């Protein structure tokens, strides 16, 4: 078990290195081939060649690409000193470089952006699990009835409607027409009620999409499980139907759901872009959008790396948890 975890962690590190390498090359090598100059992008449009050359020296942009990559990676772990033009700027670990636009260090910007994203994903997750799993179970048990058809029609709508449509609909109704929420994000520490009020609409919008997917998954899995021999055995033992469903059938139904949930949560860290943009949440996704518009490569690189880490770690957690969820899986 311990050896397995170590092996998996090693694989995670290799994976992240590969992701870093690929993104780094995409951002710092390919633009050069097309004639773009990162140093010029950093300085701005109307800069004289001397300034650009100074920046190039300071950022080490004229070094070979592999050396640049080494500096970048070692900067993440050990911090980095930028020397040039007679000054030394120290960027403490973890150093992801400086924003082209604001000249601020990337890491503090990203850590500022992380809490809204985590709050969005976490809160939405609670809602979609409650709604989706309940709807899925009820649909499976009431198969073919109006309740089942209604729930599945709603789920189909949830899967089909783009998030920016449901988001705008929610905003139009609850913020602008009824005025029930403010939909401005504030820190939880500053104002818990305001935090909740600002997040409730994004939660609902995001949860609607995922609840729909989870309802369909739950329904299909539950129907399959109900046909299993061991469910018949549970009934033959004299268990009440409540126990047959609530304990025996649910236990099996939750297994694929837990797997998907881990991966969805990991993926959401970098990809709740539409939700964050629609509700103006200062999260990672929105930071990515702004950075892309500004061609702010260091920030994009940072977001990509954080999102990749989240996905890879979530997968690792799911794999490790799987041994707990399904005793048939042996880690060896």
């Amino acid at each position, binding site marked *: 078990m311990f050896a397995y975890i170590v092996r998996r962690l090693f694989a995670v590190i290799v994976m992240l290195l590969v992701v870093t390498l690929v993104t780094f090359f995409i951002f710092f090598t390919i633009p050069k081939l097309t004639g773009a100059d990162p140093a010029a992008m950093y300085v701005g449009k109307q800069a004289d060649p001397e300034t650009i050359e100074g920046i190039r020296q300071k950022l080490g942009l004229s070094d070979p690409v592999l050396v640049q990559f080494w500096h970048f990676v070692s900067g993440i772990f050990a911090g980095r000193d930028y020397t040039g033009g007679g000054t030394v700027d120290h960027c403490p670990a973890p150093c992801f470089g400086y924003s082209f636009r604001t000249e601020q260090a990337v890491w503090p910007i990203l850590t500022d952006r992380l809490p809204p994203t985590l709050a969005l994903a976490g809160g939405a997750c609670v809602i979609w699990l409650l709604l989706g799993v309940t709807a899925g179970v009820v649909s499976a*048990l009431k198969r073919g009835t109006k309740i089942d058809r209604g729930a599945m029609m709603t789920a189909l709508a949830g899967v089909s409607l783009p998030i920016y449509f449901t988001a705008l609909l929610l905003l139009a109704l609850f913020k602008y027409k009824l005025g029930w929420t403010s939909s401005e994000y504030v820190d939880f520490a500053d104002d818990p009620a305001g935090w909740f009020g600002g997040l409730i609409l994004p939660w609902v919008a995001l949860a609607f999409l995922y609840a729909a997917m989870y309802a369909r998954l739950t329904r299909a899995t539950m129907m399959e499980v109900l046909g299993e021999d061991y469910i018949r055995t549970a009934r033959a033992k004299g268990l009440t139907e409540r126990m047959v469903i609530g304990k025996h059938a649910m236990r099996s139904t939750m297994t694929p759901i837990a797997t998907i949930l881990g991966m969805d949560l990991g993926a959401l860290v970098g990809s709740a872009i539409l939700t964050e943009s629609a509700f103006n949440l200062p999260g990672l996704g929105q930071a990515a959008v702004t950075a892309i518009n500004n061609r702010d490569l260091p920030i994009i690189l940072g977001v990509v790396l954080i999102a990749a880490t989240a996905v890879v770690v979530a997968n690792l957690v799911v794999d490790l948890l799987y041994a707990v*969820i399904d*005793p048939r899986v042996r880690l060896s």
Partner: protein
Amino acid sequence: MTTTPEPAVDMAKEPPGGRAYLDVRDLRIHFPTDDGVVKSVDGLSFKLEKGRTLGIVGESGSGKSVSSLGIMGLHTVGQYGRRKARISGEIWLDGKELLTADPDEVRRLRGREMAMIFQDPLSAMHPYFTIGAQIAEAYRIHHDTDKKTARKRAVELLDRVGIPQPDRRVDDYPHQFSGGMRQRAMIAMALVNNPALLIADEPTTALDVTVQAQILDLIRDLQKEFGSAVVIITHDLGVVAELADDILVMYGGRCVERGPAEQVFYEPQHPYTWGLLGSMPRIDRDQTERLIPVKGSPPSLINVPPGCAFSPRCPYADVPGEGITRTERPELRPVAGEKSRGHVAACHMTQEDRTRIWTEEIAPKL
């Protein structure tokens, strides 16, 4: 223990002539489908006393398993979104009629008064719960007791059915057991509440031959010890030869022959029973001889033709008898003879013809 008032016995429904411990009368289990009504069981009757073993024999689709699930009341629970099975007739268990009883009362009998062993113990046990937890659960649902006591009971039962190191294996999951051990654990789970009726649905089919004999020995020993009534369902005549006091041969959802085991084995009356005996491999038979299969395939249970259901496959359908094979359905009639008490068969042929065909044509070839 929950005590519920005994329901007043409906005197009008009480079967005349005394009541056996398990008394099934004219049981019909029909499933409506898009193609028509599947008459899986169509008028099945039998009696079984405590301490006796009944072997129900027949090919796939003859209605054996459907009947046993019907006795357990498992066709009427948890049929989410499925069309309801139509069940009629009477099932008397220890003086209680189950088909008209309150479903929750039947549920409380399930696993306590009547228990079932299923065919494939791997798929019949929950993969995510330990063997011990599954046995203890069966005990706790019927006994007001704590987890520790239930666990002790599970260990005790695992020991009784011959699991080595039961106090350690009790925490294993089903996939950690071998096939034979799983079936032993399944038997332990069925016996945890000392049921008076044990139904074993093809208990050895999924096991290899050496283990089969052990499991059959175990069932026989446990029956002696607990004095239960046992229904053993199988397509393997070897299994019933080992265990059964009485044999019931099913074909097309009906009983075609029923009687004491020796009678059915040594003086079988129905051509279908002859076919089953002829298709059974025997060690004392000349190896150059081929097994004799029952030709044709099982009848459709949707459009059951009038007349004897076996007649399309019966080599003796043209033998003139009492009634016409292809339009009139033969009733179960008693077989005459000193030793033939309780032996009945549903065949048009006269008993003289049947005895002659059996002794002259069939028996010498077996």
